[in-house]
Every structure is written in structure tokens, then in C-alpha cells.
């Protein structure tokens, strides 16, 4: 197979395992490209991509923009606070306006779950979901799995624990779908208030004890506590959260094996992980960032080839 099964990347649950492998194999080539002295290929010279960010983002947007530019695509950026969009123009109108300027592909981040799916039903463009509410963040999950594959050789059969705010996290959801699709075993770990009541319906297990979760896993993906998404208090204090779910170096040293530490960023040092952990050899946080560009190049390249 040399092309994706879908015209958009709206979420991991809409693609299959062969799609993931194709993206990874393509990303392997682009990773080699971005480590050359000239980090650019002319593949998408005839493609124009709009990055529409209806929610704040720095690293994801930067990563997408770099990926697009290294493929020689023309890039336009649009940022808007959700409130102003809601009051005036509808999402469909906003996007159709931009598409009228002959844009081929839309990379969109949006605060509402399903916004990408909704948009794909109403506009004519290839859509890449760069995060929609607490729904999915497929490129993050792909780059996470890609990084595990790079470090451990394979994702299948590995034990992965996702720690932290699972309730508000699109990263967790997409990671669960991606890891399960590739045959990994997944646990989620955090206070019960931050774990969806029905999460086990996705085929994952719940572990509320971080130390036990660490003993079980090969990989720990530490999520950020997203204070901006917490409408009420889900735990009494950050201090108490850290006591139970903060990852420290002594905890890692107490294990009889060396596990890999991941984090989608931005890190709250001293909250979900200490600096000592974040800067240790076990942490592959900066590899994830580098792989993010290669994986996004692969996704955009493969979707663009379907437009052509």
C-alpha cells in the first residue's frame, strides 16, 4: 500500500494500522531529510496549506509550519480566539473564505470536539486535525508511537502508562487509540476525578497508584495538568497532586528496569515530573519534538498526494 485509506486525518480512530505503518515509513525518510544540511525537499511546491488555530498553540503550530515549509508548501496562518469567531462568522464561513483563496489543505486546532469531522463534511479541502477539544490530537499520538518505535524497536507488546489528566486530554485519547491499534498494552493513571468513568470501554486499565503503574510499564507518558481546562477543582492542591502523581528520579531509580519517559509538552517542571527526570537520559521529550516535524511532514505529504 502506498497511500492512506482516508482523505483527511481527523483522528486515529478513523485510520487503520497500515496507515500508521505507512506514515512511519514515510517519516523515516523525512527524518533523514531534516537532518541534512539542506533540510528542504520540493515535494509540495504546488500545495497551499492554511494553519487555522482557533485555540492557542505554540509548539504544535510551529511544528506543523516547519513541516509544511520543509516540504516547500506555501503556508498561511490564521489565529482567532474562539469567542470572536462564535459571535461573528461561523466556522464553515471562515474556512470557505480561506479556501476561496485556493488553499488545498487545512490544519486546524479547535476547542470543540468533532470540529474537524464537522468541517470535513461541509468544506472541500483535506483536513488535518491538530487537536479538537478533548477529542483527538492524532499527529501527537503518531509522533509518540513513532518515538517509542524508534527507541524500543516496536510498539506492539509494549506496556505504556499514560499519567495525569486523562479527562480533558485529547493526547490521551489519541494515544490510546494508536497504541491499541499497534498492539500495545495501555494503562491510565491519575486521580479518579481526572479519569473518565467509562475509560475501560476503550480497552485500557485504570491504575491509581503511580508506583505500581511504573513497575508495570515500559513507557510512561506524563501529561500536563491543564489548569486552563479545569472548570472546577478536581484535586485539593497542586502540592497534593505532586505528592501522589509527580514523577521523581528516586522513583525511577527504585525500579528494576529502565523505563522511557515521554511528555507532550509544555512541561510543568516540579509538577508532573521533576527537572531531574525531564533532563535524564530516560526522557525522550526532545526526540518527540524532533520526530513531530518528521511525522507531520509524512502526514501532510501523504494527504497531499491524495489531492493530486
Amino acid at each position, binding site marked *: 500500500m502506498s497511500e492512506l485509506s482516508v482523505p483527511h486525518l481527523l483522528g486515529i480512530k478513523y485510520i487503520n494500522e497500515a496507515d500508521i505503518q505507512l506514515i512511519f515509513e514515510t517519516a523515516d525518510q523525512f527524518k533523514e531529510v531534516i537532518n541534512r544540511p539542506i533540510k528542504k525537499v520540493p515535494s509540495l511546491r504546488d500545495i497551499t496549506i492554511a494553519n487555522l488555530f482557533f485555540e492557542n498553540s505554540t509548539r504544535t503550530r510551529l511544528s506543523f509550519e516547519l513541516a509544511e515549509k520543509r516540504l516547500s508548501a506555501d503556508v498561511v496562518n490564521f489565529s482567532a480566539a474562539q469567542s470572536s469567531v462564535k459571535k461573528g462568522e461561523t466556522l464553515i464561513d471562515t474556512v470557505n473564505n480561506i479556501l476561496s483563496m485556493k488553499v488545498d489543505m487545512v490544519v486546524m486546532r479547535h476547542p470543540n*470536539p*468533532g470540529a474537524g469531522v464537522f468541517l470535513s463534511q461541509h468544506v472541500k479541502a483535506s483536513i488535518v486535525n491538530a487537536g479538537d477539544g*478533548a477529542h483527538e490530537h492524532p499527529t501527537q499520538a503518531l509522533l509518540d508511537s513513532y518515538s517509542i518505535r524508534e527507541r524500543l524497536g516496536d510498539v506492539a507488546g509494549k506496556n505504556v502508562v499514560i499519567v495525569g489528566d486523562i479527562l480533558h486530554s485529547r493526547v490521551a485519547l489519541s494515544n490510546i487509540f494508536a497504541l491499541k491499534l499497534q498492539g500495545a498494552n495501555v494503562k491510565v493513571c491519575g486521580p479518579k476525578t481526572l479519569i473518565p468513568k*467509562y475509560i475501560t470501554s476503550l480497552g485500557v486499565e485504570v491504575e491509581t497508584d503511580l508506583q505500581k503503574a511504573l513497575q508495570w510499564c515500559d513507557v510512561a507518558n506524563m501529561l500536563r495538568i491543564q489548569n486552563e481546562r479545569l472548570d472546577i477543582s478536581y484535586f485539593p492542591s497542586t502540592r497534593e497532586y505532586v505528592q501522589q502523581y509527580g514523577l521523581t528520579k528516586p522513583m525511577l531509580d527504585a525500579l528494576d528496569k529502565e523505563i522511557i519517559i515521554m511528555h507532550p509538552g509544555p512541561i510543568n517542571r516540579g509538577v508532573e515530573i521533576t527537572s531531574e527526570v525531564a533532563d535524564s537520559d530516560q526522557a525522550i521529550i526532545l526526540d518527540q519534538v524532533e520526530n513531530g516535524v518528521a511525522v507531520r511532514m509524512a502526514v501532510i505529504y501523504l494527504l497531499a498526494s491524495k489531492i493530486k
Partner: protein
Amino acid sequence: MKTLIKSATIIDASSEYHLQTKDILIENGTIIQIDDVINESVSNEINLPNLHVSQGWFDSSVSFGEPGYEERETLENGLLTAAKSGFTSIAVNSNTKPVSDSKSAISFLSSKAIGNAVNLFPIGAMTMKSESVDLAEMYDMHTGGAIAFGDYKVPVSNPNLLKIALLYAQNFGGLIQSFPHEKKIAGKGVVHEEANATRLGLKGIPALAESLQVARDLFILEYTGGKLHIPTISTEASVKAIKEAKAKGLDVTCSVAIHNLFFTDAVLDNFNSNFKVLPPLRTENEVTILREAVLDGTIDFVTSDHMPIDIENKKLEFDLAEYGTLGLETAFGALNKLFGAEKAVTLLINSKERFGIPSNTIQVGSKAELSLFNPGESFVFTSKHIYSSTKNSAFIGSKLQGKAYGIYNNNQLVTF
């Protein structure tokens, strides 16, 4: 003026002609003859394929828009929609702008329906502006024709207010409605909280949000006495609680929305906002229990919970879209498919008594208030079957069984 309905199968368990195919002759709005064959030359003869007739259907929860939300629906087209969908009587919710919380608002609604083929019965707000703070003038509205009092989908957050309303309305036998929804538990949820909500990253409304409020309301009713109607329940625990309350002898009824009987939350996969309704669509398990409760009578009656929403407020990202679906057009086709024609008809008329709406057995001498329908026709419901001004139907694309031809009521024939 005479009207002759030819070869109609009568579905009316209270009539001696139940399940018989007859000709029905109507003069000046009254049934004057029912016979195997009536040969009389009349100005108006109704001869339709597989025609069935029943007592006129009543829907206890219908929203239009006038006054205030005419972009959703006008009373004129709303009543026409009801007639074409087979309803001779409807109760109109208080969710207008301004809210129907005064006698003059009730009179406005009633006056707009004078001379119409459809009987309109207004529901008054229980609280001023439906803000759930101060009681509205329920007695005054009662004398003006309001048949019940409730704030539509605004839950009574203050339990003492419900206590007082239930006590006060006993002065005049008023029926109080309390929408079962605990707002704090529901939080920012937009769909049923379970596997599908989790998979789709949509915020869930726990079934607990409904059941908790139902349990609270039933405790209050037990204390106060009075008449309580709990509109549109959707959970197993609510069914159980209401069953127990009835066994205790409390004067409580409840309804379920037809779409909550017809769909499960599995339809949410495409984030289609036409499925954004309140209470939310539940799981297969809950839907099965709701259907059983309809059959065993724990759920007293059904409603279309008809709610037109203009495209500007519906064709949006799921979180931002308003709640509600059209329901009148699809009510019979959905119920007939689920329960068969006889039960469907029973469900569409048996709420009349609770709301004090007169019923008319199909017999010589009765008022001709009839619903006309064909239970045999199977079809896929599309937007071209919609009579409403808006198109927000959850049933678009669904296969239904049976279609209303229209109504005969108030000496008028309305068919689509």
C-alpha cells in the same frame, strides 16, 4: 357541510367499531353515520389508500417559536405541521420570548389558534421568566386556559421552590412539571456519559443528573401531595423511582421523548448536531428499558418534544449547537415502527386525560376529531418530508413505518 370518509379502518379501543373498516359520514363537525358502505353525494369525500382513523392525537410537549423566536417556527406553520402530522391537539411549551409566564401571554397563544383545525393548549411557566426564582401567577394563567405549569428545559434548582409550587397549585388542581436535570452534576455535558462520549471526547451528562432530580422531586411530592408530571425521562433509574412512587400512590406521571425511544447514542459518531437533544440519547440498554416501561405503563405517555431550531443555531460544532429536534412529522412513523399501530395510537392519545383534554370516542353523535393515517407505508424519512420551517430532524435518513395523512377536526380537513 357534509364530509364522507370512505373505507377507513377504525383504531379506537373505546369504540364499538374498533378494528373495523367503515365509511364515516360527518356533518358540521359531528359524526352522524358509521356504516359498511355509505352512498351519499357529499361536497367532500376522503378516499385514501389503506386509510386508518383514530381519535385525534395529542402531544404534551411542543415548542414553536412565536412569540420571540419566529425564525424557528411561527404558530401558523407550526399548527399546520401538527395537523399534517396527524395531531388534532398540542400543548405548547412556555419557552417563548418573552416566556409565557402571564395570563396575557397565555391568551395570546390561545387567540392565535382560534378557528384553527388544531386545538392549542398553552403550558404556563412555573416561575417568572422561567428563571426558577419567583413563582409565576399560575392561578391567573389557569383561568386563562393554561393546562400545566413548567419551565420547559429549565430545571427547578431550588427544591423549596418546587415544594411551594406543588403545594400552591393544589388550590386549583394545577399540574406541575419539573424537568429532571441536576445542572451541577450535568456540568458542561452535552451527550450521555458512557463509552461513546468517552470515545468521541464529548463531555458526558451522567444518567445520575436525571435520576437524582427525579428522586428529589418524588420525595418532595410525597411531602406536599399535589400533581406532578415529569417530562421526558430517559434513564433506567428514573423508571425505577417513578414505578416505586406510583406504587406508593403518589400522583405522578412521566413521559419519554420518541427520539429517546428510537435512537441510541451510537448515532453520535459523526458529530451530527441534529442528534443533540436534552435529555441526551442514551445507550441500547437504557433504550430497551424505556421501551419496556412504555409497554408496561410505568412511562405514562410519549411526546415528540418537537423543537425547531434555525440552521444558524444548529449547523454548528456539536458543543455550540442548540439542543432539540423536530418530532411531530416523524412521531407516528417512529412509534408505529417500534410498537405497531394499535399501541402507537394509544400512546398518542392517552396523555389527554392527564392534561384535561377531552377525548372523543369514534361513534355516532361524537365530535369528529380524527387522525388520518396509513400504518402500512414504509419509507426513508428525508428533509422533503419536513413541514416545519426548520430542518433539524434527528430522523433524517431513518427508515420509518407509517405516515399520517392529516386530521379532521373543528369541521376542517387538513391533509398534506
